């Protein structure tokens, strides 16, 4: 369980607080979540791991407002921004003010920039259109961000001229320029070629060091272990284990479920065991 005491009322050390969240897809037999609760402290990184289909994407999408919820509350900076209502399964994206939406930054698994804009255009579109900021100021900030993700020289490239890893880094900049309260990353390296994974995750680690609050779903366990302040194991829509000590979660998980899950990333070569035994027998002779 989390170590912070569950106080009622405002707590300005908590960026995101999800309470008793229930999610049901229209036409689905059962709820994806039947009431889950957790919080992300300001400036901290919460990593969610769990098997495929356990509801990780649904959780991020619900928080982002892309999916309506049927129960519980979502609070940002101590203010409840959404309360679940049963029966709104089909209502699509949640009605949220433009300002509120920009407080959540989201990067998806598929790297989809706006294909008709160049890199700079992708990043500056929202601050210009939505926040009505000044063009030269926005472009300066965009270039600074590109510098941080080592893409300053690609500012005028078109998305199709970039590799997947480069596009994901641009997508991160596009989210960051709005200064989101919390960044939601849903398996952002899962669709990348292996050699590009590192360049993207490196950027995310730097963001964590800079104090960006993040909620990260990932299958990259060494990355998760390096970056997490807290970890949640989600399975079948339930939180099976939560830990405020990432190192401990990855080395000494408390639950059988977590052990099994973490074990699924290890490779055991049974032939080696056999060979070892033969070797020992050989030595004994």
């Amino acid at each position, binding site marked *: 369980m989390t170590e912070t005491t569950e106080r009622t009322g405002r707590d300005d050390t908590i960026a995101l607080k999800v309470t008793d969240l229930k999610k049901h897809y229209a036409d689905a037999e059962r709820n994806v979540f039947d009431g889950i609760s957790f919080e992300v402290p300001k400036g901290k990184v919460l990593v969610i791991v769990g098997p495929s289909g356990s509801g990780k994407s649904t959780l991020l999408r619900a928080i982002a*407002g*892309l999916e309506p919820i049927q129960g519980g509350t979502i609070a940002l900076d101590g203010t409840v921004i959404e309360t679940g209502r049963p029966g709104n399964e089909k209502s699509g994206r949640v009605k949220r003010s433009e300002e509120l939406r*920009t407080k959540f930054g989201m990067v998806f698994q598929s790297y989809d920039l*706006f*294909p008709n804009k160049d890199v700079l255009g992708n990043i500056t*579109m929202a601050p210009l259109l*939505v926040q009505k900021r000044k063009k030269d100021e926005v472009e300066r900030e965009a270039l600074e961000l590109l510098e941080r993700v080592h893409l300053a020289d690609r500012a005028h490239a078109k998305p*199709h001229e970039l590799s997947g890893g480069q596009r994901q880094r641009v997508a991160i900049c596009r989210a960051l320029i709005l200064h989101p309260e919390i960044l939601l990353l849903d398996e952002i390296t899962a669709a990348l070629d292996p050699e590009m994974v590192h360049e993207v995750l490196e950027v995310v680690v730097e963001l964590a060091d800079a104090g960006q609050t993040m909620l990260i779903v990932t299958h990259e366990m060494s990355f998760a272990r390096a970056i997490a302040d807290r970890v949640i194991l989600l399975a079948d829509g339930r939180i099976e284990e939560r830990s405020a000590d990432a190192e401990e979660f990855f080395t000494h998980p408390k639950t059988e479920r977590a052990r099994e899950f973490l074990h699924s990333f290890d490779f055991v070569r049974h032939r080696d065991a056999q060979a070892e035994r033969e070797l020992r027998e050989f030595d004994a002779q």
Partner: protein
Amino acid sequence: MLDWSFIGRYASFFVNGAWMTLFISVFGIALAIVTGVVCAAIQTARIPVLRQLVAVYIEVSRNTPLLVQLYFLYFGLPKLGFVWSAEMCAIIGLGFLGGSYMAESMRAGLQAVPQIQRENAYMLGFNRRQTLVHVVIPQAISVSTPGLVANVIFLIKESSVVSAIALADVMYMAKDLMGITYDTYEALFMLIVTYLIILLPISILGTWLERRFDYARR
């Protein structure tokens, strides 16, 4: 052999015919595009009732020959008290036929825009209009352009049917000259050349447009 003096003598007929073809086509295609935009918008926004009406219109428009539509407008409607000029009937006929084709091309483009692009726009705080103008339409155009260009060329070719309601387009001129001079080959030759002169630039422009909006290859 072709009688080349025919060309000198009757070139002006084909020039005049070409102007009529262009006149009918430009307004007919403009009407088709407007109709297409309205229908595609109704279908994409899933507006009840109107949506069903659009579906019926599209079926009727696509499954009846333009000639039949023109006869209905030119010979049928006056019986109901609507008398329109031949030009008006030709433009409305082309617009009626083309509207469904344009709507289908536009709808295909709109549907091809991945849902995740709208979700990105939502996360970035875009309102509905900004999402449509800056995210959805630019991407839809890239998918729609080849179809829209093909429709324009198709409609200009189809406009040859208006000669049947006595409009003096290129086709009409060619038929007329064949009747008067019996220089069938020369008239047909000029007919083909005139259509090529009209359509080739449009085809080249279309190819350029397709490239212009093909964001993945440019």
